[in-house]
């Protein structure tokens, strides 16, 4: 019934958004940088000729040089910092994306059900979110890391499982306003089951908001992972991440400042670009919010 109306509005929204986004030079630049960075981080370690944990006994803690073979220098164990930084990037980006997907699935499901159900159910479900919100967030993640042991899969789950609250709230608000729209009512009158209405009609109409929050959640998650790794609670040797590298660098910064500067630069640029893309998307997809802060 509503099938013809739905794709038309959806497509024009996305086309509009693309037009606005393309005009936002900062966002486009950030997007290009992110794509290049991702490709480099994924591909370059194979071609660098160094491995992540191999010690170069002749070059321990040497500064960066183009000719010496270690572009970013080496750390106190003679490991090539270029390769380590890129490997750290793989872990950080992977955690960012996977944990965001986990939080996306939980948040969208929870929020859509809560908003669509409304009434008592909604009140109870949102009360639970409020309570979880009041919990000191880092503490819970730290606790889960201690509890489950420090494996990378559990980092995904732990961060994702805690980061879904914002998503749930936003999705719930949208679902609440969607549920009284005519096309939902038509579906209900047509005898479609609530689960199916949520899946086929509510969730697709939330995608705009969800996309914005994905781009804003990924940097948050990368930040949490770096925070954990910085405190020594994240990924373990010989694997590394930007947070762990910044921690190593911070301890050696008086003798070997490059150990701090390169990972810090990569981490910061990535976060910076994600925030710019997220902001650009918000302007593009949600004109009401234009100019307002997060």
């Amino acid at each position, binding site marked *: 019934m509503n099938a013809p109306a739905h794709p038309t509005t959806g497509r024009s929204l996305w086309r509009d958004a693309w037009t606005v986004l393309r005009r936002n030079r900062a966002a486009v630049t950030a997007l290009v940088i992110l794509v290049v960075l991702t490709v480099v981080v994924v591909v370059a370690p194979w071609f660098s000729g160094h491995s992540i944990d191999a010690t170069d006994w002749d070059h321990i803690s040497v500064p960066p040089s183009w000719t010496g073979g270690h572009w970013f220098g080496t750390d106190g164990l003679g490991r090539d910092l270029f390769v380590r930084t890129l490997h750290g990037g793989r872990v950080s980006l992977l955690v960012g994306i996977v944990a965001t997907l986990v939080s996306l699935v939980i948040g969208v499901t929870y929020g859509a059900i809560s908003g669509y159900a409304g009434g008592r159910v909604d009140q109870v479900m949102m009360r639970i979110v409020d309570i979880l919100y009041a919990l*000191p*967030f880092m503490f819970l993640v730290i*606790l889960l890391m201690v509890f489950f042991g420090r494996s990378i899969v559990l980092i995904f789950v732990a961060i994702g499982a805690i980061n879904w609250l914002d998503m749930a709230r936003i999705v719930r608000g949208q679902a609440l306003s969607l549920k009284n729209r005519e096309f939902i009512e038509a579906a209900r009158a047509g005898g479609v089951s609530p689960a199916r209405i949520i899946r086929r009609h509510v969730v697709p109409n939330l995608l705009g908001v969800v996309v914005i929050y994905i781009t804003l959640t990924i*940097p948050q998650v990368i930040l949490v992972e770096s925070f954990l790794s910085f405190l020594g609670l994240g990924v373990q040797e010989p694997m590394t991440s930007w947070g762990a590298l910044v921690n190593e660098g911070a301890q050696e*910064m008086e003798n070997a400042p490059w150990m*701090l500067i390169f990972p810090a630069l990569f981490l910061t640029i990535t976060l910076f670009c994600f925030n710019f893309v997220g902001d650009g998307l918000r302007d593009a997809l949600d004109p009401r919010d234009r100019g307002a802060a997060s």
Partner: protein
Amino acid sequence: MLKFVVRRLLSAIPTLLILIALAFCLIRLAPGGPFDGEKQLPPEIEANLRAAYHLDEPLYRQFGRYMANLARGDFGPSFQYRDFSVTELIRSGFPVSLKLGGLAMLLALLIGVTAGSVAALRQNSLIDHGVMTTAMIGISIPNFVVAPLLILVFAVGLRWLPAGGLGDGSPRHLVLPVIALALPQVAYIARLTRGSMIEVLRSPFIRTARAQGLSMRRIMVLHALKPTLLPVVSYLGPATAAVVTGSVVIEQIFGVPGLGRYFVQGALNRDYTLVMGVVVFYGTLIIVFNFLVDLIYGWLDPRVRP
């Protein structure tokens, strides 16, 4: 207003109880005990230790005991710092953290609101773009990157300020930690203020005030400032939580003997009572602060009061 206060209070108390229960369960479910050390303890001694700390009792009895003690302000003994109670550790660590966090908050509000207002009044000017780009950088660079960089530049390089510790307690030691802690909040508050002020300046009541011929200064102070600050006030809750979390890593980097450092040590050592004490303490602080922020908001903006 009284009804509003009571209702907010009724929602804060269960939150607190659930927080305590959740923290209690998670800590007790975690594998590894407080007596795991380098040396394996003889089983008899470990059994005695467990009995002394009531760890051999069923969980619900332990929880009841913990709640009863909490009600008296007693967080129990620390498992790692044998000679101290958790209450004593909190009492020694918290004033330092409070000073650090309070100053950071104050700095963030002052600079954030000023920068945001200036940017809003000169929208799309060079100043505006400068402030917004700086704010974006401030949000993007994490605390634990800013802090070592500050040390590298101002302590190691220029030698203007001490790199860490509290030393003789002079304010010089607090400068770098406070800046590192405040920076992301400055950025958030500046962005919030700018967005909100732009919206306020466009609203009809400002246009009316202008039409009446009021000076811009008068309009700003009497009419625009209060509605502009509403979102900033409601952000104070999350800001507190962020500053508390940030202080953990900042205290670690700068070697400040605050509560955040105890917390990290406690988490690494599985010091049950200390970790729980800190979480309950900070959780309570955040919940109480959110409650106060709600009240202030309700007082400022009658629309949210039922």
